[in-house]
């Protein structure tokens, strides 16, 4: 069996899935829960949140989208941190890449766990 050399395909695969999920689903959710309900155009169907298929759907929506956001902001954030340290020698780049990655992907993982926790406890 071929040895796995890099985890990159996994991250990019999750990134693509999260990008499609957030592109297709996030705008209508903002319209509904953020604008239509507060302005009184619609009432919120709270019974929906009791259904397990809906909770599973919300987990996919929130966890994958948050991961996508984390991946997307990683490079600009790295660039930004890099700007601050741009006078440092080359080895310093590796040193700062690690904490930025931990911050961003750790944040995304925390988001996924928090989503599961909230939806299971509802």
């Amino acid at each position, binding site marked *: 069996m071929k040895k796995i050399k890099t*985890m990159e395909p996994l991250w990019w695969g999750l990134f693509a899935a999260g990008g499609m999920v957030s*592109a*297709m689903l*996030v705008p*209508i959710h*903002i319209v509904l829960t*953020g604008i239509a309900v507060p302005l009184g155009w619609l009432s919120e*169907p709270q019974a929906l949140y009791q259904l397990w298929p809906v909770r599973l759907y919300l987990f996919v929506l929130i966890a994958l989208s948050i991961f996508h956001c984390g991946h997307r902001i990683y490079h600009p954030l790295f660039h930004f941190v890099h700007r601050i340290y741009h006078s440092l020698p080359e080895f310093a780049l590796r040193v700062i890449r690690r904490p930025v990655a931990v911050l961003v992907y750790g944040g995304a993982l925390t988001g996924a766990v928090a989503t599961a926790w*909230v939806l299971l406890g509802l």
Partner: protein
Amino acid sequence: MIANRPDKSKLYYPQMPTAWWFKKWNYFFFLLRELTSVFIAAFLVVYLIQIYNMGLGAEHYAAFVERFKSPGWIVFHVVALIFAVYHSITWFKTASVILTPHVGSWAVPPWMVTALHIAAWMVVSVIILLLFVFV
């Protein structure tokens, strides 16, 4: 994920000016697109907190969602919506670059791939709206 990359010191990294993203509109829109993720993530976190509060009792939840009626929160959601729509449209344009479906020997043109994605987006959004209204 990083450890197996080629030795960085043997590669050339050009030095970018701090305001590189201000030089061309294309660069600016690229960075703006990356920044949409901040607003989408903020909305998702707010939504998750809202769902969490839903589990804490009806009276508590009613008081909690009352704050979303304030102008500040409406503005936040409108701004998040603008960024989310911008992300969706550019994502579907990107999809047409990445995906080249074939029907027999005919390659589906990029504009049609984008159009089909946008059509699917509209259909999915209407289905969620109908579920929200009628279930």
